[in-house]
């Protein structure tokens, strides 16, 4: 049930929406926006830090935090109270995003759809790659499949809409653009987006101590590599090595 009657929430008061009796959505806005995302992730960090008894798990998305909880251990009112306290003390624990340089091969066959995208946009393929690799992306959220990451920050001049109908299966590690966003896929699957490149990095590697490379809020740049370097990096990644460059451990 809606927590407020207002459908366009202001900057300060989030909406509290019930998703059944065991999940509460704290919604900060309705759009994909770095400021809204930052508020979601700040609440995510603050609640993780407090870890009130009865919270089952937290799911940050573009614009809201879904809190799965056990209402027999933590009442909705007590949970909402915890959220309000976190919001009142936003500096309690600032999320510290990491920056990653992720290798990406844009050459065929990795960048399967690069030519198609370039011709859609009426620009040269080289120029497409240059612009894609020059941008800094923000990991907004995971979804769709384990390790499948949605990235904001795609330059508007290379933003293409989704395909009118899905294409066939792409390779794992495909770097996709569509719907104004960029994403990195982890499994071979059909997509309604365009394959601009492919990374040898594995965003989901179950054998690693930390199976998921990125945290929501992290930033990313893509570093172009040729097909030979892609093959070499893929072999190292397959053995468990992290081939993206990230913060010093």
């Amino acid at each position, binding site marked *: *049930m*809606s927590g407020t009657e207002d*459908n366009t929430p202001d900057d300060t008061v989030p909406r509290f*929406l*019930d*998703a*059944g*009796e*065991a*999940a509460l*959505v704290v*919604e900060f806005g*309705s*759009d*994909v926006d770095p400021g809204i995302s930052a508020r979601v992730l700040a609440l995510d960090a603050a609640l993780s830090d407090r870890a009130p008894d009865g919270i*089952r*798990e*937290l*799911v*940050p*998305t*573009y*614009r*809201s*935090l*879904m809190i*799965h909880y056990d*209402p*027999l251990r933590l*009442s*909705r009112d007590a949970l909402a109270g915890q959220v309000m306290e976190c919001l009142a003390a936003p500096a309690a624990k600032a999320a510290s995003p990491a920056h990653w340089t992720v290798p990406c091969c844009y050459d065929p066959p990795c960048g399967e759809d690069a030519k198609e995208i370039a011709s859609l946009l009426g620009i040269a393929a080289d120029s497409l790659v240059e612009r894609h690799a020059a941008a800094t992306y923000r990991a907004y*959220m*995971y*979804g*769709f*499949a*384990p*390790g*499948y*990451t*949605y990235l904001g920050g795609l330059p508007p001049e290379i933003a293409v809409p989704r395909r009118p109908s899905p294409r066939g299966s792409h390779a794992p590690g495909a770097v996709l653009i569509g719907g104004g966003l960029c994403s990195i896929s982890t*499994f071979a699957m059909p997509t309604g987006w365009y394959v601009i490149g492919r990374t040898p990095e594995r965003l*989901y590697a*179950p054998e690693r101590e930390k*199976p*998921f490379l990125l945290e*929501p809020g992290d930033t990313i740049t893509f570093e172009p590599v040729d097909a030979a370097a892609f093959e070499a990096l893929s072999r190292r990644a397959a053995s468990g090595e992290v081939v993206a460059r990230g913060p010093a451990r």
Partner: protein
Amino acid sequence: MTSGLTILAAGPGSTVQDAGRVGYLRYGVTGAGPMDPFAHALANRAVGNPAEAAAIEISLGGIELTVDGGAATVALAGGSFAVSLDGQVLPSAVVAELQPGARLKVRPGAAGAWCYLAVAGGIALPPVLGSVSTHIRTGMGGLGGRALQAGDRLPISSALPAFHEAGAIVTPMLDRPPDRIRVIPGPQDDHFAPDQMEAFLAGPWTVSPRSDRMAYFLGGPTLKHRRGHDITSDGIAMGAIQVPGSGEPIVLMADRQSTGGYPKIATIIGADLGRFAQARPGTSLSFEAVTHADAVAARAQEQAFLGGCIPVEPLVRTHFPPEFLLGLNLVDGVVDARS
């Protein structure tokens, strides 16, 4: 050798499920877990396991299995499936001892779409991201990330000593006709005008044959959105009822994706997830809006039941061990007969 369950035959879609994968939705990992959480927990509790233990979720495809390496106590609970042990018909909710080589057959019965088989001690498989729940689409968990098939062997954990009375599990809490399902409106109920919410509740809705562990598709009236069917993706709880552009609701179940981009008109309450999951394709149903407090009360009732001693009534006996006879108050029985 540790004892184990060997699958002799399995229709499609039976899998190993514990209570689900917790903590990884934020990384795009599906929670999986049982379609009917109450029946899964009940089967486990009936053999003395923790409610969350790994059990077999049996689909409408049915299953046939045996035990090796020693006797095992198993419990079945869920829909009204047809159960037999070496040809002897058993109740559909039952605790039974399986002797090595005995054949347990579970087939679809009078009603229900899922049935859970728990074994005392639990099924010992290596967890993936903290859970043994099978998610077939990503090949995660269970036995090789896939559905069970003939020849599979599931090792039984011997951590728990087993003494369990065999018999029928008798409780009105398993009597759950899926005709009226309780929901809490939202999280995007404001995307629908009041008359559309009324139409949604009244239905009637028919469960489509397209339904599976990921989602149940409903056919019925076409619902209209107030302002488009596209929203910025947000989290999805189990039992969320999303309404895509077609206007026909989709109920997102155990194998749902962690996030999605259609407005969710309502969410099935925890205590009715199993009731709904047991609706076979073709079932006609409607929804009833309840308050958050109602939903919490229903959940508390279920938890209290599962936390207590699961009522098991002996089947008709052909063997009377001394401890059984001593446990009977025969004198009271005589007095009762006279009154």
